[in-house]
């Protein structure tokens, strides 16, 4: 049960990251491939402030948000005028820098030894985890409501216009760079805050948590769910993280011998799904429709897809396990 709450909390964190990426890439067309960098910066910032400086959770969250805001503003000022491929490369370089600094700055981060323990903010014995989960749930639902409104708002229209044709939007008197840098700073800061909230979840921080596969998992969720759709991020995370990290890891009868294979199968399937979607269904499951009456129909469709995805994944896993079994056997024989 405790593990399930942990997984569900992490699921909410992933949804939050994908929602922010939706604003950046889906609405504004800014391909941030350094998601894990902002998340990791926030996580380590809270970790260092709580463990090394013994600050309260609220104080450390506020200071972390300010820190990530400054960092993302500076990075944004450097790169947001560049073409998309350059933004993508620069953000991935940024996340690599953060991951390296987590290792090298031992005086702060304890390096590969690890930093801990970061305790839950709600100190009610026995209810700590579940209260934190509900706190995250309220937060993510709030963000989702805001996103749904953003899609129908003037600001959302301006963002989409910038994504479609930034030069034309500027020629209509829109300060496109300002819109981009404010949105980038805001969404990256929220990614950092989500990282800060992940610190008490993980409790013990190590640099190998800041890996590119987290960025990748967020991207695959968004692209699968539909990058331009308000609900795409949420649906995508249910299909990916919800399926693999919760349903299969918690409930699938995988013997411990093969449990170690599941993360690899997961990343393999993520890759395959991403390739399949981009080559055959570039708009993702939800496409880009945003009319409220279509959403329900689309959701039904999404649930059907999750179902078929489940079957497919089950088959793929049994295949993978078979293959691994055979592989291991031949190794043993040799």
């Amino acid at each position: 049960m405790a593990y399930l709450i942990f997984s569900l909390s992490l699921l909410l964190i992933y949804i939050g990251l994908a929602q922010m990426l939706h604003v950046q890439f889906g609405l504004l067309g800014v391909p941030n491939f350094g998601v894990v960098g902002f998340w990791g910066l926030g996580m380590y910032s809270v970790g260092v402030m709580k463990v090394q400086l013994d600050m309260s959770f609220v104080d450390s969250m506020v200071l972390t948000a300010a820190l990530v805001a400054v960092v993302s503003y500076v990075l944004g000022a450097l790169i947001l005028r560049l073409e998309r491929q350059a933004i993508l490369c620069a953000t991935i370089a940024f996340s690599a820098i953060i991951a390296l600094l987590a290792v090298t700055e031992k005086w702060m981060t304890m390096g590969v030894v690890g930093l801990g323990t970061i305790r839950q903010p709600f100190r009610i014995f026995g209810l700590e985890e579940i209260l934190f989960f509900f706190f995250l749930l309220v937060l993510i639902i709030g963000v989702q409501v805001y996103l749904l409104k953003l899609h129908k708002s003037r600001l959302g229209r301006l963002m989409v216009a910038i994504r479609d044709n930034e030069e034309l939007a500027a020629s209509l008197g829109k300060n496109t760079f300002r819109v981009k840098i404010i949105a980038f700073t805001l969404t990256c800061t929220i990614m950092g805050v989500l990282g800060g909230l992940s610190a008490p979840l993980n409790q013990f921080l190590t640099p190998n948590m800041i890996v590119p596969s987290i960025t990748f998992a967020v991207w695959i969720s968004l692209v699968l769910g539909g990058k331009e759709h308000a609900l795409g991020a949420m649906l995508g995370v249910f299909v990916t993280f919800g399926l693999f990290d919760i349903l299969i890891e918690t409930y699938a009868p995988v013997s411990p011998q093969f449990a170690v294979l599941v993360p690899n199968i997961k990343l393999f399937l993520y890759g395959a799904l991403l390739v399949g979607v981009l080559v055959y269904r570039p708009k993702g499951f939800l496409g880009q429709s945003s009319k409220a009456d279509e959403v329900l129909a689309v959701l039904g469709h999404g649930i059907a897809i999750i179902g078929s995805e489940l079957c497919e994944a089950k088959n793929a896993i049994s295949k993978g396990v078979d293959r691994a079994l055979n592989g291991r056997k031949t190794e043993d024989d040799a």
Partner: protein
Amino acid sequence: MKLHMRNLTKAYHAHPVLNVKEASLGTHGVEGLIGPNGAGKSTLMGLLTRRIKPSTGTIKLEDGDVTHRLNLIRSHQVANLGLVKTNQRIQGFSSLTIRDNLRLAATSTIDETYRGVLDDDQVDEAIEAEIDRYLSQFSFADPDGFAKSGGEKKLLDILRCLILKPRMLLMDEPTAGLPDDITKEVMDLVGAKVEAGDMTVVIVEHDLDLIWKYCSYVHFLSEGEILFHGTPDDVKNNRVVAEKYMGV
């Protein structure tokens, strides 16, 4: 609203494409800018809207008593000063409907805020009424949907600029891709707005009949320089223009 250029040059890789010693645009209501292909017309347009940075020289925008140096500002600021340009090539926002295109242009930036997202009322009655007026005057196959044909996209481009209520409108080949009857409607509307003193207009065009019909003053650009300017009759009878352009 007037534009003054002085010693304005643009060179790509030391290859000069434009060299305007001194010129003024926007003093005669509707003006025309003509010249052979490669004369530098599009470069000049890009320079005026700050889409392209000049190699040397200054551009000043004179608005009553106030003078703005365009060298110092970015393209969205130029538009906010009232200097707007329609596009020669078809440009558009592929995910916005015709109405959303016009709403985007008509909506002021101060309404496009993060707090504004939470407002239940995202519709501005005055803007909707204006859009309705435009859409009743110019017919689209699906006015609540997307602009489909090239002609519709071109028309939408011009309407997008007009709804900005520009003080000075640069029209870069407005007739290219537009059916004749629509061109006439657009030009009549533009003419009425100039009559009313709302704006001045500069038209870049290859269709000389349109230039002679609507323009009261014409500039002739060739090999990056403004070689001649005057009334349509002066230009028609000018030897240099005849030699370099009309192939007489």
